[in-house]
């Protein structure tokens, strides 16, 4: 299994006034291609910081980070931007779609900043990404005309349109009701089944059970790193939910 992420002894220290806050205290983590990892922990455990470092949104204070075999822990700001553009797809809790901008244009956004022009027809690529998410008839809708689940699917389409090496999701179900959460998780599982490497940050235990591996964090360190034994299959859960609805209505 080829490693996508290799992190060795990484630390991150924030300076808040006179006080140093050690958000990460020497973390080692390796994620192979095709893995589906949930990073869990209470707020303040350092899981979001880890996520930001992996996503090249932030630089580590010390330690090494290789992404796709490339040492990225000592690159320039512009190089970080290019890595975010080429190798990483983000999904956020608050969806983070551009307001008053159509779903199609939102999905096109990463291709807009693609300097290498890997994709010759951005519009077509964006349409296909939205179709994959089952949003064929919602392309011209603006975010405020879409439901939470639909917005998260648009965000997923945007994250996938530039064919990233890894999909990073920060509390992707945090703003969704439980039924829609399962729905979104089924999309993640489908993508993972197709070979996409996914790293998901969550504090919901049941959500983590849709993944294949759980990394638990506490006080800037990794506490446990265990494979998921009784994995939930989102599609089956959806079926059973439908069954419950049918019986009770």
């Amino acid at each position, binding site marked *: 299994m080829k490693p996508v992420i290799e992190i060795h002894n990484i630390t991150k220290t924030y300076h808040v006034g006179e006080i140093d806050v050690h958000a990460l205290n020497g973390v080692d983590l390796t994620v192979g291609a095709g893995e589906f990892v949930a990073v869990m922990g209470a707020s303040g455990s350092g899981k979001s910081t880890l996520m*930001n470092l992996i*996503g090249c*949104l*932030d630089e580590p204070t010390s330690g090494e980070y290789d992404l796709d075999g490339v040492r990225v822990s000592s690159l320039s*700001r*512009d190089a970080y*931007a*290019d890595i*975010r*553009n*080429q190798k990483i797809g*983000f999904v*956020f809790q608050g969806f*983070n*779609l*551009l*307001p*008053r*901008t159509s779903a199609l244009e939102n999905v096109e*956004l*990463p291709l*807009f*900043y*693609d*300097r290498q022009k890997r994709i010759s027809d951005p519009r077509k690529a964006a349409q296909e990404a939205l179709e994959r998410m089952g949003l064929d008839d919602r392309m011209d809708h603006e975010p405020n005309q879409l439901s939470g689940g639909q917005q998260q699917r648009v965000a997923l389409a*945007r994250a996938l349109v*530039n064919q990233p090496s890894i999909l990073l999701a920060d509390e992707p179900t945090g703003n969704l009701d439980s039924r829609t959460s399962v729905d979104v998780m089924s999309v993640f599982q489908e993508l993972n089944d197709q070979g996409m490497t996914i790293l998901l940050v969550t504090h919901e235990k049941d959500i983590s059970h849709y993944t294949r591996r759980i990394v638990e964090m506490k006080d800037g360190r990794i506490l446990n790193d265990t494979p998921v034994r009784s994995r939930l299959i989102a599609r089956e859960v959806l079926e059973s939910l439908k069954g419950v609805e049918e019986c009770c209505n």
Partner: protein
Amino acid sequence: MLQLTNLFKAAFRSILKNRMRSLLTSLGIIIGVSAVIVMVGVGAGSQKQIADQINSLGTNMILIMPSWSRMGGVSRGAGSFNRLKMSDTEAIREQATLVRYVSSIVFSGGQVIAGGKNWNTSIHGVDPDYRQIRSWDLTSGIFFTERDVRTRKKVAILGATVQKELYGDTDPIGDRIRIRNTPFTVIGVLKEKGQDARGQDQDDVILAPSTTVLYRLKGDNFINMIQASAVSLDKIDLAQNELAGILRVEHAIDYGQEDDFMIRNQAEITEMASETSRIMTLLLGAVAAVSLVVGGIGIMNIMLVSVTERTREIGIRMSVGARGSDILSQFLLEAVVLSLTGGIAGILLSAAIAFGLNQWSTVYTVIRPTIVILSFTFSGAVGVFFGFYPARKAARLNPIDALRYE
């Protein structure tokens, strides 16, 4: 760099999303640009008007006026010793080779009575050449002759305004009028000339032979001015020198002594007159340019607000791979597009204002292409200058902070 077309698209999109705000932001530039163009246009217009009116005074004109005299270094002021005489005009007429027309000018004025009406006006004593010098035609009657000047004949030619005031619609030719109790016969009426450069009515005048006015009305020996017309425009300087030489001989001025007269040609007079209006134009333009700068500050203000308001958008763009330079060029381009569209609208507005002024008011404006190009370029520069700080502020945002910004 990203494709410029894409950046333009992004800039236009964000401008169109905030129509009202964009309009108000551009308004400062619109007003600034149109103010610069119109103000400079009004100045240039008045400059041109002055030049035209001085040209209408006559062609290739040379003016000779008495100068101040010096008594042992003490200047006694202009005209304090009037040294121009009828004989000077005669000398010029006989000797000058580069002058086609010459006329003495004697200024007088007073009450004019015709029938039951009276009117106060200026009386100009002139020679027959005056008509050619000023290229002034008659609507009826005839001009007086060389002979009338010699014999100091009491004949008068009425200006259009005087004719209107004293006679209305009736024909005054052959009628007797009294100028300061001296009887004159009306022999002609002048064509209307309108206002001069200082806004005075040029038709409120009576022309009479110079000798008649000088000796019979004023009882004086000195004339006020000599007007001459050079044979051609390129000979005007030579003609001026020739006249000066003749007058120095006439006035017996020794070598090394100062002239006791002043000679000015038309070009110099135009120059002097337009100098004031040029300074005025400069001043008006400068004041208007200040409003353009104020408009630029308006753009900076709005762009700063826009950066704060769109911090999250900037974060999103950065998270999908926008570099700092991409964000910078997007915001900078937005500011430039705002200021340039404002510039174009300002040019259109100024064209409309200039058209309105020329059509419905007495103010005459000339729009110069150079000032249009200049103010348009300046508006673009204002956009870059005042857009840069907010754009850089946006580009320097930290992606995480920008994403978390509420």
